[in-house]
């Protein structure tokens, strides 16, 4: 469906159609229903698909037999890419019911090349009683035996399952098993085996050749790179050679200026997708006059705003980095659907269409309290509220003076309200504050007991803010809220309730302002993470971190002990010996302690996909070492960045980080068991530290 197909219906009908369009996008897995969205360019799989398709359309025998595997979780766009490959090919099973999903499809190109498509390798139920259970390995085997090209959509679980199945002793089954092993881990291929694999470590596109037959294998790992980053380009389109990346995957710095426009985002798969959706909504020509009391219509309006949509994409990318989990297409679609059409309340009537729900709540009433309560519910259905977590309605809330998230969402992890730094937003400065205009407006209003006509106008009057991020819905919401809490309300709300409403409204405006400006929580730390990643990605393997980060990580993992007078840092690191948790001692106390002593700690890093892996090593030159590998994810980075001058800071993530760090310290302790002079007893008296070696 495209915007131009939208029938010239009433504004209400068009709204409903647009909402239903977004709610129904999940069906994109059936690509025929949304062909305009089928350009899933993740890891350049679309270009690889085109390369594969062109080979199929050439005369038989022109190119070697090719097996193409799209590997990844459901919702990554495999089906869309697969559909593009087989588009226009002649089905070898024309009598099949087209409305049903099958595991296998057979096609033939006009030139006579055969193609077997394993549409869903997870479908492993036998087709009839007594029949053999289908398996990807059997499919690969039959393709190898019959010389047929193969395109298979695979998830890792299936590969693993079939790897442990016993081989039947035939050569083709053994080769098929080797292909599965290669898909499972293309970096660890037996050089003496039947497969010659490429050495493109840390790439989403991997290739190999079967030594005996020359059959070519291509695998695209659909979730290796983020949808929110520019994908590396394919080097050449020469059909005789295997596809290969001509550039490196990089993380774009999180600067506001680069990430605030479509010109950046439409180079990324997610950005291209969201822009298409945004363009479609624009084409619906929703009338402005009906926006005032309808949050869903305001949501659609926001999504057509470049700044808002880019802010949404930036927040989703931030979510990926904070949680170390990728957002696949299916989740992105779910987020868009939720951002536009979520009922913040009234789940008891699950089948009530969101438009009807809005219609019911937006009726005018003489009961001002009820009207405010309903309007806050409607406000909670605005995209920014749904995305960062729906807040409790202060008209029904408990005793807490703050708004609480009552229904979280993935983006709650980057809710800008939890990181509302005072200051003025600067497009070119990641470190700038941003919340001043809103905080000031509420402080002013609080001081004068809200004599001002409108809180929103106080915010928008600020020259740094402007009013282009608000919709008519916000103006109506502001009118209702100011009418109930302002000077003219004449004690309509008790003081406590009034302050709760103001707190909710403050958070509401903060989130809207932030999302429209690409602001999310933890941006300074995330920026540092991306910088570190990009520095490390330049080296082929483990390399040094920058001095500051290395120092802070060392202070976090194995800090040096402070001197007796507490004014400086000593030369050694100490661990407790018999405590349940192996702790690094930061300062000696008056009580005697048995401790294990060590010197150097070296921290190196390398990139793996979007992640950073650290190699930690302890030991003196030439001596015994303890080595461990730990993922430097966002949580660990935060913990490290709050360390300063040998002192550890504490963040909300401290508890999450402690198990793996503590385990590394425990491993170091085991290594010290072999070292002479490592165990001593230490006590401190005033500024004097006494240490006696025990072993």
């Amino acid at each position: 469906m495209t915007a131009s197909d939208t029938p010239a219906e009433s504004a209400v009908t068009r709204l409903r159609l647009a909402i239903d369009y977004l709610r129904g996008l999940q069906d994109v897995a059936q690509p025929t229903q949304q062909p305009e969205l089928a350009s899933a360019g993740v890891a350049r799989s679309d270009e690889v698909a085109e390369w594969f398709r062109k080979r199929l359309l050439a005369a038989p025998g022109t190119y070697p037999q090719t097996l193409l595997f799209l590997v990844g979780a459901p919702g990554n766009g495999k089906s869309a890419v697969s559909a593009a490959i087989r588009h226009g090919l002649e089905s070898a099973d024309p009598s099949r019911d087209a409305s049903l999903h099958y595991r296998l499809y057979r096609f033939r190109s006009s030139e006579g090349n055969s193609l077997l498509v394993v549409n869903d390798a997870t479908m492993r139920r036998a087709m009839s009683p007594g029949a053999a259970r289908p398996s990807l390995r059997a499919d690969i085997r039959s393709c190898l035996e019959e010389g047929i090209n193969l395109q298979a959509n695979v998830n890792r679980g299936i590969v693993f399952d079939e790897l442990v199945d016993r081989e039947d002793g035939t050569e083709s089954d053994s080769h098929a098993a080797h292909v599965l092993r290669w898909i499972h881990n293309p970096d660890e291929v037996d050089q003496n085996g039947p497969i010659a694999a490429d050495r493109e470590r840390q790439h989403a596109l991997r290739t190999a050749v079967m030594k005996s037959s020359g059959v070519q294998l291509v695998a695209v790992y659909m979730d290796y790179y983020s949808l929110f980053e520019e994908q590396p380009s394919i080097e050449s389109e020469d059909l005789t050679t295997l596809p290969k990346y001509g550039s490196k995957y990089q993380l774009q710095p999180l600067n506001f200026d680069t990430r605030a426009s479509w010109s950046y985002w439409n180079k990324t798969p997610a950005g291209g997708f969201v822009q298409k959706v945004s363009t479609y909504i624009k084409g619906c020509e929703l009338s402005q006059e009906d926006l005032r009391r309808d949050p869903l219509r305001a949501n659609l309006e926001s999504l057509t705003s470049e700044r808002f949509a880019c802010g949404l994409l930036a927040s989703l990318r931030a979510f990926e980095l904070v949680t170390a989990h990728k957002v696949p297409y299916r989740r992105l679609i779910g987020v868009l659907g939720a951002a536009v059409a979520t009922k913040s309340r009234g789940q008891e009537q699950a089948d009530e269409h969101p438009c009807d729900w809005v219609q019911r709540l937006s009726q005018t009433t003489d009961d001002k309290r009820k009207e405010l309560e309903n309007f806050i519910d409607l406000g909670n259905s605005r995209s920014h509220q749904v995305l960062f977590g729906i807040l409790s309605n202060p008209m029904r809330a408990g005793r807490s003076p703050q708004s609480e998230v009552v229904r979280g969402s993935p983006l709650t992890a980057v809710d800008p309200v939890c990181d509302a730094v005072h200051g003025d937003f600067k497009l070119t400065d990641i470190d700038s504050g941003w919340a001043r205009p809103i905080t000031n407006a509420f402080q002013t209003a609080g001081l004068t007991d809200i004599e001002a006509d409108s809180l929103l106008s106080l915010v928008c009057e600020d020259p740094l803010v402007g009013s282009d991020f608000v919709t008519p819905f916000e103006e109506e919401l502001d009118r209702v809220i100011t009418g109930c809490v302002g000077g003219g309300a004449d004690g309509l709300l008790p003081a406590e309730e009034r302050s709760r409403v103001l707190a909710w409204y403050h958070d509401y405006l903060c989130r809207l302002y932030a999302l429209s400006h690409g602001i999310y929580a933890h941006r300074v730390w995330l920026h540092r993470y991306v910088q570190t990643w990009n520095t490390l990605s330049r080296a082929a393997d483990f390399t040094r971190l920058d001095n500051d980060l290395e120092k802070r990580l060392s202070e976090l993992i194995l800090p040096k002990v402070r001197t007796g007078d507490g004014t400086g840092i000593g030369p050694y690191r100490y661990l407790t010996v018999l405590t349940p948790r192996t702790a690094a001692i930061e300062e000696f106390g008056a009580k005697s302690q048995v401790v294990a002593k060590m010197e150097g700690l070296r921290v190196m890093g390398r990139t793996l996909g979007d992640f950073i892996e650290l190699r930690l090593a302890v030991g003196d030159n030439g001596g015994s070492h303890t080595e461990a590998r730990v993922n430097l994810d966002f949580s660990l980075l935060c913990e490290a960045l709050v360390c300063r001058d040998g002192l550890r800071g504490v963040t909300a993530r401290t508890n999450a980080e402690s198990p793996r760090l503590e385990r590394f310290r425990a491993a170091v302790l085991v290594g010290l068991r072999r070292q002479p002079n490592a165990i001593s007893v230490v006590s401190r008296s005033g500024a004097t530290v006494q240490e006696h070696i025990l072993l």
Partner: protein
Amino acid sequence: VSVADADSGNPCRALVLFNAPDHIHSAEFALTQIVHSRWKIDDLKWDGKVIFRPKSDQGHDESRYSTYPTRSSEKRWGRLVVEVRNAFPSLATDADAERVADALEAELSGLRIERQRSLVATPLSPALTMLQTPAGVAGRDNPVKIDHILEDMYELGGGEWGDVAKRYTDALNHLRSADKYVERIDSVVETGLLPAPLEAKNPTRSGESSGVGQIPNSPFSWFHAAWKTITEEDWVEALPARRWIEWCGAVARLAYGMGVLWEAHWYVAIADALREGTAVTEQSIWEGCNNYKTLPWRTGPDAYGNDVWREYRKTNIEAALVRTFLKKSAAKDQPFQSVVDKAHRSELVSQAVDTLLEDIDKRVGMASQGVSMSAEDRIDAVESALKERPVSEGDPDAYYLLRETGKTRSKSIFVDPSTEIAAVVASLACEHPGGTTTVRDVAEDFRDLGLRRDNLEAELGKVLERAGLCRRAHDADGSEDVSCAFAPVRDV
């Protein structure tokens, strides 16, 4: 009503798996009992309540003898200081040795669990374990014989009765040779704090084997495999001494709690068979128990909705009633099959069990009245083993499967495995330190233990990821690699 011949009086062994499960004081308590089944001290005091140290905030209890001296008990303190200097010749003065003695008191103490009257010594070696007796630790004359119950469980899992203690004490001996510091403090304790040398003894079994045979895919089979693994020498060497002891304690706690819960389902399953008059075999009963899975792991937003306390409370109350009924009415040494066959032919038995259990829901609702001591003991056994133990100070309990929230009427106990208990189960699923396994295999172990949940792999994957042992992938369906938490130390 009797389910056996009229001359009954003693329990049919096949119907009683474990002897009176009760509160487990601490993981260290279980390990202390295991060591005491193979070693003894020839001293009258060691027949009673011997403790490591009283808790400073508890009043002095004359009936308990404290093995770790204070500086005020000059003679004993002096003997300790001499032995410290002997063990560590690098110490130049008595004052230095006193510092070590001071430090040892704190470092040898186990977890400081709330409301417990004494500090427990970490059982790092046989001599260190002898710094306390089970009666001293438990604060009662006849504490529950956890060592026997664990041996019974190990046997049900496919092991040999007595091997729990044998393997553990052998491993302790290996720890002493692998860790010089442990070896030295062991000698300090043996010569400086104990009144006599340790003497070996053979564990004695009270009663016959249940004769039930091996039960695969159960908490017992997991315990058998895990205990064999953790007591291997490579595992002793791969972990810090204290951590290895903690892991042993965690394995014992987990097996004990889940095993007792499994046994409760065993009685309930027998009762159901008697009530319904269905023909059953011993195997069909335990297969039913295995398939049922005793503990549902729910993670809904409402803590009350995730509660498992009401479920296992009811199961244990029912189990205690059935067990008492069977003990009274079944004949000694009568085979299981004979008992159930006779019972299921008897309408009277069916009615009797019906009557016994008719007001079970009412009983569950009562706080304590209407619930037998043995039922409360069973519930206490499960909770004390599996639930997070609050500590009064120092390091927290890191090895729990259940957590509690709310108070009294709004109390909810729910499944929430700690990262460390997940790390223990996952690591022991690897064959050797430094090995790998998969989320699916770890989930299988948790299922054997009795955890019930659809798509257990996904939820467990989250815990293992928090523990830093795996990285989840959406499409892996549990095939993600899980690393062992500890690897052998190697020279680089």
